[in-house]
């Protein structure tokens, strides 16, 4: 990318955060575009709060440095970002652009990578393994390729030893120990650390922390959104429903119904 990584005496970590519709509310598809409606209030994706927490802990362990945030939204919504700033991140860069609506995963990765570069790069870029609303799960590794970085996905434990990362990486059957040189990109799984709750002081301080807002064009990434997308929704339909089952209230003897059911299907 013609970019020179600036190494500092302290550790700089950039965390990718996504602001998503509240997962507690039922999701809805926009009937004109067949994409998830994201125009309401957005909150910090819980799976990104782990990355923010891990970044704060790594900077602490390194004895100093800074945690910065990058995020992308089709509007200038930044309440989710403020949550991460309240946890302790120092600054943020929000790529806010109505043209971004409909962007595919590859475009998202290009935009976020450009945002990382605008912040001057980092020793470590952290992201969640996948968002809780889109589930594509490819953006971190795509970003690593755009940035020309090595990467370790599905990290459940991360430590830094000088200029080397040591990562416990989840696998289908357990975990692998992986080493990786810095700078690098790591995607972290949910539950790896206990995200701190923002303190009142943190929430107040977050209000005055710098968040720069730019467009995709400012970052030199075009085309984006529908125009840059390599995909188009062809159809949306209801899945065939399962036949309704028997639902009963436990009266203290309902375990017998389970035994009966298992007998009927001949597994006992």
């Amino acid at each position: 990318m013609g970019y020179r990584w600036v190494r500092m005496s302290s550790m700089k970590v950039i965390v990718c955060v996504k602001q998503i519709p509240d997962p507690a509310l039922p999701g809805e598809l926009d009937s004109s575009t067949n994409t998830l409606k994201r125009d309401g209030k957005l909150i910090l994706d819980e799976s990104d709060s782990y990355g923010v927490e891990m970044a704060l802990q790594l900077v602490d362990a390194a004895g100093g440095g800074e945690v910065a945030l990058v995020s992308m939204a089709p509007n200038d919504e930044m309440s989710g970002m403020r949550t991460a700033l309240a946890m302790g991140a120092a600054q943020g860069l929000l790529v806010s652009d109505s043209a971004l609506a409909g962007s595919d995963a590859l475009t998202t990765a290009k935009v976020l990578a450009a945002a990382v570069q605008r912040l001057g790069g980092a020793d470590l870029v952290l992201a969640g393994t996948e968002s809780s609303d889109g589930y594509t799960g490819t953006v971190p590794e795509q970003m690593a390729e755009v940035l020309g970085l090595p990467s370790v996905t599905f990290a459940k434990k991360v430590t830094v030893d000088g200029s080397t990362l040591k990562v416990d990486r989840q696998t289908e059957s357990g975990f692998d120990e992986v080493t990786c040189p810095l700078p690098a990109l790591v995607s972290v799984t949910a539950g790896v650390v206990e995200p701190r709750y923002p303190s009142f002081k943190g929430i107040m301080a977050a209000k005055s922390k710098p968040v720069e807002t730019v467009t995709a064009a400012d970052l030199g990434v075009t085309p984006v959104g529908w125009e840059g997308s390599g995909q188009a929704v062809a159809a949306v339909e209801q899945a065939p429903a399962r036949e309704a089952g028997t639902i009963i209230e436990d009266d203290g003897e309902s375990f017998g119904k389970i035994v009966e059911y298992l007998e009927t299907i001949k597994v006992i």
Partner: protein
Amino acid sequence: MGISNIWVFSQESNGTATSGTLELLSQARSLGGTVTAFVGGDATSIAGILGEYGASKVYATGDLAGALPGAAVASAMKAVIDGGDSPDLILFPQNYEGRDVMSRLSVKVDRTVLTNNVAVAVDGDTVTVTTPVFGGNTLVSTSFSGSAPYLAAFRPKSFAAESAGGGAAEVIAAPVPDLGSTGGATVTAVHVEESTGPKLDEADIVVSGGRGLGEADKFSMVDDLAKLLKGAAGASRAIVDAGWVPYSMQVGQTGKVVKPNVYIAAGISGATQHMVGMKGAKNIIAINKDAEAPIFGVADLGIIGDVHKVLPKLIEALQSRG
């Protein structure tokens, strides 16, 4: 024109091809054209079975020497594409390696990726894939636009694995080029956390526990029931995230997809994340104290009740049968 050159990212496990690999090869064959297997690693032990399931040739990187496959295999794929063998469609398994390789390749060939699919259809030059959303209640079909190669990932058990009766495929070396600044991530040790008994994704009976168990210690009830039924124990993401059980037990979108004969969900509400991993079970039994829990929407037998009361009695009843 048309979709005539299809690749399948193929994986080896314990000396044979993974079930996901065989499923994708079978599906690729049914789409027409030639099917090529691409292996990140040494393919000597699996060239026979890859050929049997429809691969007419196999590209193999050779031993990756501990390198994480994402950057390494994608670079090897790009080198073959640059060399003139350009696929129209590449099918990836929806798992760690598949996701990493397809992501890296996506940037190298500047094409998007479509993940989490359960079906694929080809009509002329158009490739359409289908993914379930909102807990599998809605199916969204998406077509690739622009030019090939199209990159798509599929959930395990989306397709049936059927032998084509073919002979061993020719193995062609596709070495990993110098990775430059993207290389360096290396596996130094491997840890296996699998429990005894049948494997979660192969078991005929799966008993899973969720947040409704209340505390980590209570998961032993799930374990006990699974053992009594000679099945495997699984878990919802909520209690894996909470650290009660290892990730290898997670059933769902991010974990394992199971299609057992019987699935018993104890104290699991049925979040989207979980449902897509178990909805394919033949018989679903759910125990949850919230009558409104979405899990009851897919249950063949639903018990609205407290798992702490129902499970011990059920376990006792099964034990007394000997």
